[in-house]
């Protein structure tokens, strides 16, 4: 329970997911490093930083040592909406629900299909 974010559950699943065949396929296909700054309620406030490294196939907590290809800032809820296909990343961007730093090209590859989907009890 080191994180109070809902997103942490999904990122934990992502971590394991990257070790599967499907996950390895993903790193081969994308090969980029994304840094996620996830805030509980408001962008920029009390953010928790995660790195989804699709070069090395890792998910780590804390800022990336180096320059990530793209850095996203969003709230916990909006990140989940994006990762589960509920909200289109571009819509999130337009709304200002997602802020992007870095390459737009890299950002465009940040799509819901890179995340595993949580199953329901």
């Amino acid at each position, binding site marked *: *329970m080191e994180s*109070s974010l*809902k997103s942490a*559950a*999904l990122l*934990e*699943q992502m971590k*394991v*997911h990257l*070790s*599967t*065949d*499907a996950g390895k*396929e993903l790193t081969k296909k994308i090969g980029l490093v994304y840094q996620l700054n996830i805030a509980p309620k408001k962008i920029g406030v009390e953010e928790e930083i995660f790195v989804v490294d699709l070069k090395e196939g890792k998910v780590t907590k804390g800022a990336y040592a180096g320059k990530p290809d793209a850095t996203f800032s969003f709230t916990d809820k909006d990140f*989940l*909406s994006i990762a*589960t*296909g*509920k*909200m*289109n990343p*571009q*819509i999130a*961007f*337009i*709304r*200002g629900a997602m*802020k*992007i*730093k870095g*390459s*737009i*090209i890299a950002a*465009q590859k940040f*799509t*819901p*299909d890179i995340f*595993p*989907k*949580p*199953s*329901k*009890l």
Partner: protein
Amino acid sequence: MAMRDLVTGGAACAVPGTASSSNPLGAFANAILGSSSKAQEIKGLPGAAVNVPGPSSDFRTEAPLTTLPGLENEGQQHQQPYGQNSEFLSGFRSADHGVLGDAWNEVHQPPLHIRGGDTEARFQEFEQIYNRGVPPTWDGPPQGVLSRFLHSFVDSGRAGVPFRPAALPVLGLSEGDKQCIRDRSFIMAHHIFADKNEEYINAQVNALLHSLDIDGNQRLKGPMRGSYPELEEYWTESQVALRPGMPNFADKWVSEFSQQRESGDPEAWARSFEQQHGVNGWASEFEQEHSQLASIDQMSGANMYQIAAMEQSRMLANTLAQNTDPKFQNSKFLQFVSKMSRGELIVDENQIKPATSSLTDDWANEYQGQYNAGPSYWADQFANEELSRGKDKWVNEFVKENQQQGSDDQWVNEFSKLHVQDWTDEFGKQVAEGAFGESTADDWANAYDKYLDEQLFTSKKRSNASRGVYEFSDMNPYVGHPNPLREGQELFRKGLLSEAVLALEAEVLKNPDNAEGWRLLGITHAENDDDQQAIAAMMRAQEVDPTNLEVLLALGVSHTNELEQPEALKYLYSWLQNHPKYGALAPPELADSPYYADVARLFNEAAQMSPDDADVHIVLGVLYNLSREYDRAIESFQTALKLKPRDYSLWNKLGATQANSIQSADAILAYQQALDLKPNYVRAWANMGISYANQGLYEESIRYYVRALAMNPKADSAWQYLKISLSCASRNDMFEACDTRNLDILQKEFPL
């Protein structure tokens, strides 16, 4: 018909505080004529000098009194009421040819300003002229004549026709009466002619006053005082006149006048004008908007967010507009952004919908409508130089208005916190650098098209469920069923979950306090893969029956699925507290904000107390899911399954846990068990799809999602996942079927 009338139309009354007529073309005229009289100016009486008309040999005095201006004598209506030089007047003779130029000139050519000491003389001259042509219709008691005369002034204003003076009998108005009429006429005229310039208004009022033998120059002598007994008498009379039995005085004008007088608020007059004469929706909406803007400093939360989103998209639209690639310029994406920026589309939660009641509202649509219809129409109608000038003016007007809105301090402060500039700059820079390339710009735009369509399609659905409010189905054939609960139970048993939902909804509509109805409804939704509705129903069940263990467990499970840990923990702890056997284990002081570790420890104690109680193991399994200790969770569910091997939902829980710990192959076996026991278990079908998708087997996953959706077309998350799988399987050809939720096509294409 004369262009003037076309342009100003019927009710030329504008709402106070706006520069716009209620008529779209009138607004256009407004802009083109640049005559935005600001109603604020009339808070005090206008300071401009009144222009007393000079005599003219050409002056018309025949004003027919029964035929009010703007009615049958259309051909003459552009005759100027007030003295001008004859060149000017003759110019107006051609007004009925309906050329814009006339309208333009009429409004813009300033009336002759006649000043100087010979005013008195001129008045006398006028009086003579008038008196020569007194028509019989102005007969009657002075008040009646005055009333009708004033009314005709209002009518001409409404008809957008310049008012023509008439020769009236001597009405015997006192100085007080005159001052009162003088002052109020100016106030009123600014409302009636809110879309006209000052000169025009002054001219109109002068025409009125002149007929009444009132010197316009003597207005503004301060407010009416009580020292005019005759005036008081007039007002008293006029109000008495409103009562039945005195039909002659039942005059709208007078009543409006007196209402205004009572309230002491000039704008009240305009409001009553609106009420009585009817103003089209636009004007009132505009007013609404205006008041919303006025209270902008009270805005917070969602509303603020909308404005921010609007502003963001506006800035983005500006940035994008500088990209000259015609392909990009024509893209729906850009259209979308500009629509957002104009407030025509708003983003609510994750949905985009046409603006309905907030902010610019229909006003923006109306404006856009004009803008769209405008250019060609105008070009056809008036191919002259005024066009370009007017258009610019209009645009400026619009821009100015935007700036006014934007300059509200609170708003700007609040807004700047959102750092909109940052990301639009960033975005614009990269677009400018060609970051999109040729094809990606299209992708980007297409994504919007699709998403927009999709969102508009589903926009009516679902916004309350996430807030714990149960959303009932629109059409429910089970309403009126003699025993919907039994019917619902039967349907649930048969596995017809979506039908069971309807029957159970009918039950809880009939008996809102039936906990069993709500509970089963919640269970059905959960099995139908809709946790939000499940939570909403279960919360109602819990209200009625706060200690029902099944309800508490179901709430704990659904909140776990929604990754809402604190809520899940609360309900699971509550389960323990209310359990007849384990309740003693749970200290009540923990109930408010239970710690995960404490709850897990207590449940372990319970499991040691009764190792053969499957339920304790189930709750433990859920708890371990919360803490993402999947191996322990799997162990707990497996223990429970030994005790309850035919519990299909338990098989699903095991499968889901295995799936979440990326043991997808095992998960599929568990789901299969569940489906063997309950073939229509939508949740298990959807979970199957997820497991295949997570293994990268997208084609397979599509079939399972489609199967789940065939049973419950309302399972939103399954639709979202289906879309992702279609995309990953490069089945973009099926996007449309997915976006329009066309299950026939999908089932045909992806049979299981």
